[in-house]
């Protein structure tokens, strides 16, 4: 069914991670769930086909240095989304970097326990 991969024999064998069970949480952190939902929503809106998405995600996952335990899966997911947004002319890396930095400044400027709002970024506007 799949071509055999000569490099695979040198890979570590599969070991079931501890704590695995039917009730394990599907997302380790809230941002992972949000990144997941963004892709589902943008696909529904027709920004990209699911095959396009799977092809880009596969590319990101196949890059060297992927964690063997799959813990960086949603980082690849996010990278794949950023690539597609850039390709589709929605937002390039510079714009995403800038808004991301703005969110981090806003978080800094927001007292603990209060909702973080982008308006709290002191450098904004």
């Amino acid at each position, binding site marked *: 069914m799949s071509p055999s*991969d000569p490099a695979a024999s040198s890979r570590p*064998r*599969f070991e079931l991670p501890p704590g*695995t069970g039917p009730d394990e949480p599907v997302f380790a952190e809230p941002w992972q769930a949000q990144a997941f*939902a*963004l892709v589902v929503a943008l696909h529904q809106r027709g920004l990209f086909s699911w095959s396009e998405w799977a092809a880009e995600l596969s590319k990101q996952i196949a890059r060297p240095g992927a964690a063997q335990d799959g813990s960086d899966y949603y980082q690849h997911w*996010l990278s794949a*989304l950023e690539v597609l947004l850039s390709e589709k002319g929605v937002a390039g890396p510079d714009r995403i970097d800038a808004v991301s930095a703005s969110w981090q400044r806003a978080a800094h400027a*927001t007292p603990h326990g209060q909702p*973080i709002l982008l308006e709290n970024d002191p450098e904004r506007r």
Partner: protein
Amino acid sequence: MTDNHHYHDHDHHHDNELDPFAARVKALETILTEKGLIDPAAIDAIVETYEHKVGPRNGARVVAKAWAEPDFAEWLARDATAAIASLGYTGRQGEHMQAVFNTPDTHNLVVCTLCSCYPWTVLGVPPVWYKAPPYRSQAVINPRGVLAEFGLKLPEDTRIRVWDSTAELRYMVVPMRPVETEGLSEDELARLVTRDSMIGTGLPLRPGSLGPGALWPPEADPGAGI
């Protein structure tokens, strides 16, 4: 990821910190909302759906119905996409489903060697190990070894068939109905069907192993699909 961002800069110990990935996702939400490409409320609804409503219970209902009704099993074998949709579980990605049935001679195992294609509509979001490189490579090369890691030892003469999912075609395993389940209702049967038994890395539970409240709360509404 959670432990690598203790900046402790200046005197801002009580300020909020955003994980770099969390900040990037927020940035994307901001940009996409400004451009009118997403509605934040819809994003929240999708998260809620996948975290709490869609899960292996959908698939368990499909399997239980196939165990209980030979006509449905036949339909599921012939056209899984339609048979599953008849229960209200339809894919958002326009993917086709194929149900692969375990028999006394053949055990089926599902993987996605490329990335993480998975039958979300019936099984929810895939577990971490399904997306990890060792499973994706070893399930094809050494399926028996992988199954042993899950504590599943099959007879030597049982054939193991590995199915490689794609973006267009997703597989789910229909395990064999456990013995001593005559007279159980479809709901009771569904409670025996585990997520792993529908990926092929496990078998259904035996009726005796079902304690009160085992598996998942039966009162929780699995939702009407997605």
